């Protein structure tokens, strides 16, 4: 799983939403162990960038190259709302062949919620469940879209901790968030720096 060492490279990326160009000439290269924080106001294109990097949408220009499996955490959990939490997670744990499901559940304090249907969970609880799914996936590249939104301060600290561990283990994390994360050595860029200026229009 760990070999070869993961990398995530974006070159001259440009993305549109509708007819509007959100950013252009965006390039970055992340090697094993690197974390990168993308900041930007709402609507600046953070989510669009994450989805383009994930390969879910086709960028308007430029390309993304990667080595390693992708894990995505965004506002959509991918969990069946009618199922109890443990059953909904079990589907993804089954697909990802997770061995230590119990530890992951305990770590994210999900044990007391195991029998609650996903649709009754609060925003923060859903986010923690999605984090459990992400951890189980064991992907070497993490794409996190607003991982802190809806979480209490204890859980926010946990997200930083998980990212630190992930990167210490040779993983890559690209994090789009307007909130700060406590990850030493994390690089950062503002997506507004790549917004088109008059000359591009």
């Amino acid at each position, binding site marked *: 799983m760990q070999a070869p060492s993961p990398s995530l490279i974006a070159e001259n990326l440009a993305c549109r939403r509708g007819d509007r160009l959100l950013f252009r000439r965006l390039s970055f290269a992340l090697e094993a162990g690197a974390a990168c924080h993308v900041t930007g106001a709402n609507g600046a294109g953070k989510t669009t960038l994450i989805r383009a990097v994930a*390969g*879910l949408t086709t960028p308007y220009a430029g390309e993304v190259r990667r080595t390693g499996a992708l894990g995505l955490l*965004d506002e*959509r*959990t991918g969990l*069946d709302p009618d199922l109890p939490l443990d059953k909904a997670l079990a589907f993804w744990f089954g697909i990802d062949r997770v061995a230590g499901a119990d530890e992951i559940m305990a770590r994210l304090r999900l044990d007391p919620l195991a029998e609650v249907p996903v649709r009754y969970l609060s925003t923060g609880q859903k986010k923690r469940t999605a984090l459990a799914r992400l951890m189980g996936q064991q992907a070497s590249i993490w794409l996190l879209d607003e991982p802190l939104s809806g979480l209490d301060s204890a859980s926010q600290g946990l997200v930083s901790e998980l990212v630190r561990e992930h990167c210490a283990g040779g993983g890559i994390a690209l994090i789009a968030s307007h909130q700060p994360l406590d990850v030493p050595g994390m690089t950062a860029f503002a997506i507004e720096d790549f917004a088109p200026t008059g000359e591009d229009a």
Partner: protein
Amino acid sequence: MIAALLRRDLAQFFPFTGSGAALPVVFFVAVAMLFPFAVGPDANLLAKTGGGVVWIAALLAAILPLEKLVARDIDLGFFDQLKLRGMAEEAMMAVRLVAHWLSFGPPLVLATFPAAALLKIEGETFQILILGLLAGTPGLAAIGLMIAALTASLRAGAALSGLLLIPLALPILIFGAGALARQDQVSLGFVAAISLALVAIAPFAAGAAIRAAREN
């Protein structure tokens, strides 16, 4: 991964396990039950027209599950997560087609037994009706899946899918119900052929549709 997905999809859509999934079958029987009340208990008239009624009821029942068939999982980000794990959209849609048909075709065929009794359909007509439904429902499921995927990102998708299914299902209806009128098994071959072609293209059309839905 395919097996796990099929199990999950079946749990979602199979009658009496998924949420409100039994509705199409109940609707189907209800239509068959209402018809004798509307036209009167004349056995000859019922036997002559009943087969067509069963076909129309099947077609309308095929519309009911479409709303939840694809749009819900797009909103959940479910297909996105599968995509990140390397599964092609075409494979997701092929699995969904199988699950959709299994949860609506065979239950409908079973429900035809009480429906046929209510409509006084017997003997060879009954045989042709059952065979026709077995041959035609995969085609209806395939049309339904394509429409559900195409309209998933539209606001009025649910209302639109019903309108779109009816003209597309006409060939199946014409040959399927036509086989009953002429007591002719050859038409069933046409039904099966149309179904086969639809089943073959549906995963690709629906897969392309959910890929396109991500772009907006």
